[in-house]
């Protein structure tokens, strides 16, 4: 089954194109990371899935139902952590959860929910006095009510401290193990890398890539870096190394030579250093960071 299916979805606000012919399929049970810089159209996409906005063209299906025509049925089986939501009402945290349990006709125990998201100590205080992080936890708790088939989390780690972000990831994994599909939007790459099976990258309303993180790395052809520390860098070595097939860049950093290169070229780089008469003291390699990957796709620097 397919959890989310966007077909040729375009959304314009006046002259501004928020989404441009987006086609996207998220399989049932998948944890899907939806990446993009702020303003790329992530929230607009989620608005369309929840019928908070209507597509200018194209068609959106959620859990096999039409997102615009079967809105209530979609929301009955979807848990949502919206972004940019306003201040909460005067109800306490627990009452917010109870309100959600009632709205979804679920049988969750509100105490279990507030405990699971770590706000049990504040459950009886008005939510209007919660900090950003606590509000985010409460919203996650409300999203979990009713064991939804689909979780839509829009920038869920906003305002969370590292510990909170870790707990968020654990909950996402647990929900995925339960069989839920998770649609997780973020502009923070590490958050997505840690939990997601597949990633889609959105840039200026265009879906520029959809793949696993490994797949993206390969497809983008972004190279890693290799730092070889020597007893001294012989003259001309940098040029020699740059001439090696698969090396894209070199620079000298004190006694070290830093080469941007693909994996198969690494042995040749070390060999070239030896041939030049230098003693290799240390070798460090690093994979292309997600930032590099992201920049490669979104055209940013």
């Amino acid at each position, binding site marked *: 089954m397919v959890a989310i299916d966007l077909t040729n979805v375009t959304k314009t606000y006046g002259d501004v194109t928020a989404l441009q012919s987006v086609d996207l399929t998220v399989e049932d049970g998948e944890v899907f990371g939806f990446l993009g810089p702020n303003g790329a159209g992530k929230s607009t996409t989620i*608005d369309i899935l929840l*019928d908070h906005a209507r597509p200018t063209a194209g068609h959106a299906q959620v859990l096999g139902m039409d997102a615009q025509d079967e809105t209530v049925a979609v*929301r*009955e089986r979807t848990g949502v952590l*919206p972004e940019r939501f*306003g*201040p909460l009402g*005067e109800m306490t945290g627990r009452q917010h959860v109870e309100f959600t349990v009632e709205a979804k006709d679920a049988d969750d125990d509100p105490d279990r929910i507030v405990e699971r998201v770590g706000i049990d100590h504040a459950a009886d205080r008005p939510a209007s006095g919660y900090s950003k992080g606590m509000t985010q936890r409460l919203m996650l708790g409300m999203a979990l009510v009713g064991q939804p088939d689909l979780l839509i989390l829009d920038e869920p780690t906003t305002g969370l401290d590292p510990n909170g972000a870790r707990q968020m990831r654990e909950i996402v994994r647990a929900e995925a193990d339960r069989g839920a599909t998770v649609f997780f939007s973020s502009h923070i790459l590490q958050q997505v890398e840690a939990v997601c099976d597949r990633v889609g990258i959105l840039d200026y309303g265009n879906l520029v890539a959809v793949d696993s993180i490994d797949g993206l790395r390969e497809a983008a052809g972004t190279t890693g870096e290799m730092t070889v520390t020597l007893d001294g860098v012989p003259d001309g070595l940098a040029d020699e190394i740059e001439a090696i097939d698969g090396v894209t860049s070199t620079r000298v950093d004190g006694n070290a030579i830093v080469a941007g290169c693909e994996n198969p070229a690494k042995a040749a780089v070390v060999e070239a250093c030896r041939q030049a008469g230098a003693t290799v003291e240390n070798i460090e390699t690093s994979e292309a960071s997600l930032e590099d990957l992201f920049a490669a796709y979104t055209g940013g620097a």
Partner: protein
Amino acid sequence: MSTLAVAKKDFQDALRSKALWGLSIIFILLSLLIAYAFTEFTAMMEVEEQTAQGLAYFLASQIGLFVSITAIVIAYKAIAGERESGSIKILLSLPHTRRDVLLGKVLGRSATLAVPTLIGLVAGAALGSVLMGEFAIVSLSALLVMSLVFVVTYISIMVGISALTGSTSRASMLTIGFFLVFEILWGVVSIGIVWLTNGLSLPTEFPNWVYLVNQVPPSAAFTTGLTALMPGDIAGVGTPEFEAFYATPWVGVIMLAFWLVVPLAIGYRQFSKADL
């Protein structure tokens, strides 16, 4: 079901924000003052028929302004404010329809205004009845029922207007504009209509249909409609002295029904197709 859930949350928020208690105190004081003033003045002016029925009508004519202003204050942001802040996305991520949210807001905010209004009226009616030594249960019940309808109607108008826009500043301009045109300036508008239809001059005698035009403001429709429900005649408030099918105080009730339904329907139409 969903509508009631939204209404309940809305009302609970009002309960907690203490606005309800402040309003209740103001309405009770106001209503007691009106009742006291009525009995004092009618006694002073030596009005012979100092009736509880007259008191009910007098209370109604005096609270109209306060109900309408309070309705604006508590309802103009009902939809626009939640859209501007984004709170509405929380409600509409749950299995509620936009209609549930709209009707729930009307019910919740109506309750917020109805509770203080009715408590105040009961207090005023009780004081007046004690002072005059007369208790007119039918007239006072009519007052309570009609006031409840009036409260729901005014809230419905304001929520309907609020649903037209996602900006609270625009919502406040629209609701205040409504109040100015239909409550404060309607006398001028009414004369203007006569002036226009009479070939840009004022006639020596106003046509009968001006009676209808004058029932347009919701608070006028409220007091007129109230006389339809009350038994007998009220001193100084007669039914129109001309013959026409519309020469009946029931026009007020019909006009209130119009205000109850039409602005909300227009607001719903806009809101149901809006991007949040």
